[in-house]
């Protein structure tokens, strides 16, 4: 009885997905003139590690370093690549030469003026495997970085790489560091961003101060202190007691509670990331499409989202960035049909009670554990015995990601708007992130074709076809886009500008504190 209640009610309770929305006080004063001064104390949800932008793969470090570095190109709200440290860029029609005209007079924190040599140094450092850069493969096809004059950078490619510019705008690859600053970047990061690095006390606090010569004009805040408080309850308490001006990552279950608090601002946005359930395609039952589709049918995505994310997200059947052209609007999540799923499983040779599946979930994402627990109940109804194994992040990475030693799991990815990176690496049979061992010739063909398709609209169509194929075959079960959240004191102004359009980075350039 209870289970049926559960199903009916969760669907009934569901509201519509929340898009960008800041609950009030701040909106009222949005027109005020920004005041300069003050130190913003930010309760950061994660620990900052290596401070070298090139070597940093973790979102936590990136979130902080975003304020210290500037990238040669960036994206606007609509995810179009726009100039950053360059005034303009130009792609040769053959797609093999990129020419960047740099802004004049851009200052680094050390007082030096940026020249083409700095760009060359930065790109080559990132490309060099010895650097151990996380995004080094962005430069895979780069044959040479040439500097005809101080303000011109010409990049020669050995082969066409359509996504190159977008990748530069992504985390880290496009940042420009002063020549020879590499060895000290890890401990004393330096770039051309709005804030200068002041100090880092490992695990406790990163301090940054306004850089007055920032090329887009100085920031309002004197300084930003990113205090690292990983425990959600403690972070919430800090915000409530006024010890912190702002926190990121409000636990999803607490968003409603904070929104109800008139004394605080809450900002949620989506998508922070998307989640999907993975089935190992080398595991016998999952070789059969019917089993995968049946599994998809067992899951009520809306109810699951409500249960695991407390409604802080929106279901989707496509992993593409929701506002991007590639997003396949026609796809809808499969509706729950447990009887149908049962029948399909029986047809595939797995009658009720014959399937025993181990679901590996990582404790790194507590909501994955909650998701798994809810799944267990539905799968039980469909006659599938699901057992959860909890893994630490390191174990998940080594077992699921590297060794592909799992039957079923789930993961999230920051929602990448660059389709090639997303679909080729995740679903192409040779893709670097194809940890499910998916081998679908149709997807392989489509993703290869997209790479050499120059017309944007045409490419988008191809990617929509890829999404359709993923859905049809149920290679993975795409669940939802998850919200990002920020909570702040009423005095924190300009909160709308904090979140980078890619949904994951935070930038304090235009934030100010009301007296």
């Amino acid at each position, binding site marked *: 009885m209870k289970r049926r209640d559960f199903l009916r009610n969760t669907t009934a309770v569901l509201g519509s997905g929340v898009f960008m929305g800041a609950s009030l006080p701040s909106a009222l004063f949005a027109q005020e003139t920004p005041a300069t001064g003050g130190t913003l104390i930010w309760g950061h949800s994660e620990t900052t590690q290596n401070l070298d932008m090139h070597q940093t793969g973790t979102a936590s470090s990136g979130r902080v370093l975003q304020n210290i570095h500037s990238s040669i190109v960036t994206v606007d709200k609509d995810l179009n690549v726009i100039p950053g440290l360059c005034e303009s860029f130009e792609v040769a029609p053959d797609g093999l030469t990129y020419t960047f005209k740099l802004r004049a007079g851009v200052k680094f924190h050390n007082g030096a003026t940026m020249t083409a040599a700095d760009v060359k140094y930065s790109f080559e450092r990132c490309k060099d495997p010895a650097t151990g850069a996380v995004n080094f493969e962005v430069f895979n096809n780069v044959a040479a970085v040439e500097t005809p004059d101080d303000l011109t950078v010409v990049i020669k490619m050995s082969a066409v790489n359509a996504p190159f510019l977008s990748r530069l705008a992504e985390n880290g690859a496009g940042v420009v560091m002063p020549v020879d600053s590499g060895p000290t970047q890890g401990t004393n990061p330096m770039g051309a961003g709005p804030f200068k690095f002041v100090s880092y006390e490992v695990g406790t606090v990163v301090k940054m101060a306004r850089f007055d010569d920032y090329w887009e004009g100085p920031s309002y805040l004197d300084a930003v202190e990113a205090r690292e408080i990983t425990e959600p309850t403690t972070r919430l*308490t800090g915000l409530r007691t006024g010890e912190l001006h702002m926190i990121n990552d409000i636990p999803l279950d607490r968003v409603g509670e904070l929104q109800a608090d008139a004394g605080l601002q809450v900002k949620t946005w989506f998508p922070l990331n998307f989640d999907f359930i993975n089935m190992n395609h080398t595991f016998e039952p999952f070789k059969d499409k019917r089993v995968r589709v049946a599994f998809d049918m067992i899951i009520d995505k809306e109810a699951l989202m409500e249960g695991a994310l407390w409604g802080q997200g929106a279901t989707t059947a496509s992993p593409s960035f929701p506002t991007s052209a590639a997003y396949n609007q026609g796809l809808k999540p499969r509706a729950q049909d447990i009887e149908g799923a049962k029948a399909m499983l029986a047809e595939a040779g797995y009658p009720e009670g014959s399937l025993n599946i181990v679901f590996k979930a990582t*404790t790194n994402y507590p909501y994955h554990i909650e998701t798994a*627990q809810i799944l267990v109940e539905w799968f039980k109804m469909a006659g599938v015995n699901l057992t959860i*194994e909890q893994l630490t992040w390191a174990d998940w990475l080594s077992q699921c990601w590297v060794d592909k030693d799992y039957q079923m799991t789930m993961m999230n990815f920051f929602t990448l708007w660059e389709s090639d990176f997303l679909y080729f690496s995740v679903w192409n049979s040779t893709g670097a992130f194809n940890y499910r061992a998916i081998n679908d010739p149709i997807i392989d063909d489509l993703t290869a074709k997209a790479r050499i398709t120059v017309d944007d609209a045409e490419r988008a169509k191809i990617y929509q076809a890829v999404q359709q194929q993923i859905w049809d075959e149920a290679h993975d079960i795409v669940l939802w886009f998850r919200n990002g959240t920020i909570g702040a004191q009423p005095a924190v102004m300009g909160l709308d500008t904090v979140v980078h359009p890619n949904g994951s980075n935070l930038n304090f350039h235009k934030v100010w504190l009301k007296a």
Partner: protein
Amino acid sequence: MKRFKTTKGLIGIVLLLVILLVAILGPMVIPPDAATAMDMRARRAPPSLTHFFGTDQLGRDMFYRVILGTRTSLEIAVSAVVMSIVLGLPLGLISGYLGGLIDNVLMRLVDTLLAFPALLLALTISAVLGPNIQNTIIAIGVAFTPYLARIIRGEALRVAQMPYVEAARSSGTTDIMIMWRHVLPNIMPAVIVQSTISLAFAILAEAGLSFLGLGTQPPAASWGLMIQASRDQLDIAPWTALVPGMAVALTVLGLNMFGDVLRDILDPRAK
């Protein structure tokens, strides 16, 4: 005073009996599904007539969970403690009774184990052997062994110097028989006391381990897992911590009171 002690012991025995009954009968009386059935209308519902002990973040009934979790928790705790006794008792006994070089070597080993962080041990076991209840028991049992070995060694050392041991030796009893007949019975009270304390620690250790993925795997219920899950909701749903917490507290209390009585029962002097 005796009356007081007897009442105390009686309370302890009653407590433990109730807990044991719950552990044994719980799964027979209550359908096993009751611990995992979710009610999304009543997430984190406070204690009420429909949910005696409230519900957790997934709307699962805390009353059923705590009852069905009893057996798991006790199984883990008891097995782990038994394991630490099986490993630690011979170690401590031999070390303490024989002394000398053997003692030195064994104690250096024990020191090493003691200084070795339990966390690293748990992570290694979880990563290499996999997260399940058996391995949780191994992790806790191994982690407790050096403490127990230490205590037993101290006791064995004390008993080995008692005249009755000398008397036994002078009447031709072999070392093995002396350890078995004379040393072992006399160190048992200390072992029992230590075990009752260890049981409490073992229940809580499981809570800590489930943080690392070891321990009971959800959605199954155990006290440790429930306590761990309460961590992020303590301020808005305190019952999620208090309900399993009280279960542990009552068990610990019962064990403690019973421990004193058990010592008396085993001690012929107190009859």
